């Protein structure tokens, strides 16, 4: 089975991604991660204005069969939260790199990117 790994973003070994945007970084989980979890039924995310730190837990994702912590690929202040996931957590399964995004953070330290995997490196990890 092959998984989508877009090369426009950075990856954490625990299967989260960060995508640079005009305002900071957008964060979500990978196609591989959503497939491992199966049907996502619940996502718990921080509130806007809270801060998160790189490689620390920022939330929880529950599928029917498992519960899993979410780790931040980059730190920063939470600018916005994808509230669509509260009513439609299945968006994480359907479009993990698009409509299934979780947070946008601002004020990230760009040197943190050095600790993350490139798309190629992440692809090797899940191969």
């Amino acid at each position, binding site marked *: *089975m092959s998984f989508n790994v877009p090369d426009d973003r950075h990856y954490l070994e625990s299967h989260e991604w960060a995508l640079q945007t005009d305002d900071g970084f957008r964060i979500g989980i990978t196609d591989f991660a959503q497939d491992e979890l*199966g*049907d996502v*039924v*619940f996502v718990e995310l921080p509130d806007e204005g809270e801060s998160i730190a790189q490689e620390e837990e920022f939330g*929880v994702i*529950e599928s*029917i*069969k498992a*519960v899993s912590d979410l780790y931040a690929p980059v730190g920063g202040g939470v600018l916005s939260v994808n509230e669509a996931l*509260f009513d439609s957590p299945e968006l994480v*399964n359907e479009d993990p790199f698009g409509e299934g995004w979780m947070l946008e953070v601002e004020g990230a330290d760009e040197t943190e990117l050095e600790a993350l995997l490139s798309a190629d490196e992440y692809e090797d990890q899940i191969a």
Partner: protein
Amino acid sequence: MPLQTPPLRGIHADRGAKFTEFGGWDMPVEFDSIQTEHRAVREDVGIFDVSHMGQIHVTGPDATTLMQRLTTNDVTRLEVGDAQYAAITDEDGVIIDDTVVYRLPDEDGDATYLFVPNAGTDEATHERWIGYRNEFDLEATVDNQTDEYAMFALQGPNAADLLEDVSEDAPTELGRFEATGATVAGVECWTARTGYTGEDGFEIVVPWSEAETVWSRLECQPCGLGARDTLRIEAGLLLAGQEFDLESNPRTPYEAGIGFAVDLDTEFVGRDALIEANEDGIEEQLVGFQLIDRGVPRHGYDITNAEGRVVGEVTSGTMSPTLEQPIGLGYVPVKYADPGTTLQVVVRGRSKKARVETTPFIDTA
């Protein structure tokens, strides 16, 4: 210890199944998605490979006596082709396992039984039967046939139609908890109108060597243990190791809500203790509940009363695919067991409001 594998492991892998260890077996947990598989069983038909379930065959002049002494229900009520749910209890009346007992056609004039203990318990159960047979000095042959037979569960409102399509003598006239020999896809199988989903359906015992023939002809949504779990939770059915466990969660059949499977007028191991338990009444009982707040209850989470004092523990929980609500099972003191009672479940340190519900959570067949 290497995992035991069902006969069709390779076929399931080719179909894209994910696997999990369960009861010492390497079993498919998910083929497509739990929700897809779950919905197929509730609305149409799905098939499960449950070859990890044990099969123990008992025959001989004293077969009935042996079965009667080691299971809680009244085996003497079974005629050929009847199935019966029962518990297997220890001397203290604590559930060791639950099982379905089938009365097979007589062999050499002797009553003959097939019973199905849970995954991974077949060897211990076989030893238990042999041990008590010898102790009671009974004449019976006890064979562990777990590795000789595959077992498939064809479940859902359209299960009977599908079975009819591939069987010259489809036993669609069987009532619930009735069974018969039938030819399925040209293979002689023991076919029972039983299941673990709350839907109509059949459980089919197939010789290991013919497993592929039967499986491939019963074309419908393949389902894994993930959907089997969500379906049985909605149906309020017990899972060994969770709702009861000799070591980690010792329960009598009365606490577990399966007192209907205990016949105290019969002579069985655990009876004296259960007579006493029945007279004393229970202090705790298994209840179903729904979370009112957002979250998903899981095995091992604390249950508290409305004031926040821990009164019990979740034994099983999930997001119900049918109800789209978080539901679970757990033991609480009887004073909290009435439907409508408000409780709380502690989900990762946060108390979530819950309400006791009647089980099954759904309308069952």
